[in-house]
């Protein structure tokens, strides 16, 4: 997900070790992608901001690989879970989704804050520019009017002589 910068979009590409493109999207704001790795090796992903002239982007990404590691890797869990244990497991899953929602919310807050700060800068520049234009135009008007009447005076003198 793109957090700060410009139109909050970015290109993304994912390749497997053979160079086959698994995922390719241009100018996306956020997305999620799930795949099963068919072989071992180095998978490459690339976020590209080449299309942008000068805005920097901040991108959040995370990977979730495989299942959770078991709490007791030494044991073979053949026996069924007790009621307490299965209650613990369901609470654990529920809390995991709470944490996921929190992450999502934190990202939205960061993105909103970035947009607000961007807006603040733009409004500040606009206000200062407007005040300067106001002063320049009002002073300019006066001198322009004066110049009209100054010309008329010289023509009157010429007619006289």
């Amino acid at each position, binding site marked *: 997900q793109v*957090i700060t910068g410009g139109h909050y979009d970015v290109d993304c590409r994912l390749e497997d070790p053979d160079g086959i493109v698994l995922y390719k999207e241009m100018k996306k704001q956020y997305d999620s992608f799930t795949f099963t790795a068919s072989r071992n090796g180095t998978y490459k992903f690339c976020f590209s901001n080449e299309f942008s002239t000068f805005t920097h982007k*901040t991108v*959040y990404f995370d990977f979730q690989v495989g299942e*959770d*590691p078991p*709490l*007791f*890797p*030494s044991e073979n869990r053949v026996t069924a879970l007790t009621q*307490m*244990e299965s209650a*613990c*497991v369901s*609470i*654990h899953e529920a*809390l*995991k989704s*709470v*944490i996921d929602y*929190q992450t999502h*919310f*934190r*990202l939205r*807050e*960061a993105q909103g*804050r970035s947009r*607000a700060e961007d807006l*603040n800068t733009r409004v500040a520049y606009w*206000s200062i520019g*407007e*005040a300067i234009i*106001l*002063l320049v135009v*009002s*002073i300019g*008007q*006066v001198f322009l*009017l*004066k110049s009209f*009447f100054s010309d008329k*005076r010289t023509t009157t003198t010429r007619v006289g002589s």
Partner: protein
Amino acid sequence: GEGPPGRGIGWGALGTLPDFVSSPFPGNYRTQLWDKQSESFLPSTPGLGMHVEVKDPDGKVVLSRQYGSEGRFTFTSHTPGEHQICLHSNSTRMALFAGGKLRVHLDIQVGEHTNNYPEIAAKDKLTELQLRARQLLDQVEQIQKEQNYQRYREERFRMTSESTNQRVLWWSIAQTIILILTGIWQMRHLKSFFEAKKLV
């Protein structure tokens, strides 16, 4: 990440430290240099220096140290928000290799899912149920920290909104005053001008 040597390889890490009470963040990294002859990354890079710098959300440097080609670092911060972590290679030897690449493996442990539960169970001698309860407690603690962080953010946002409101009010008043003053100045200046020209 991979990149040409001689330039800093930096990541902006969008990590929040939800709790004001500073907690340490352990991290470790490992580098591999591209070997053009074998066209692969060497397993280790002896003699390569990496400079690690961590900045907190206020831009203050929290950690700035030189390590070797592999290293472990820990930083603590007192401000919640986005920290920046920069790994910079300043080895002049590497800059000589044009077209060279450096692969950096970076691992930073944040959150309860990085805890090693079998280890904790062995260390504290916990039964299975106690271990599961411990895991749930860690998760709930992480949730609590995040909620504290959001409460802090809401407070900051409220302060910013109120200050913006004030500034908009003062700006509008100031702009109206400027407008009126320039109008008055215009009238007076033109009036004296026309009187001088004997048109009024």
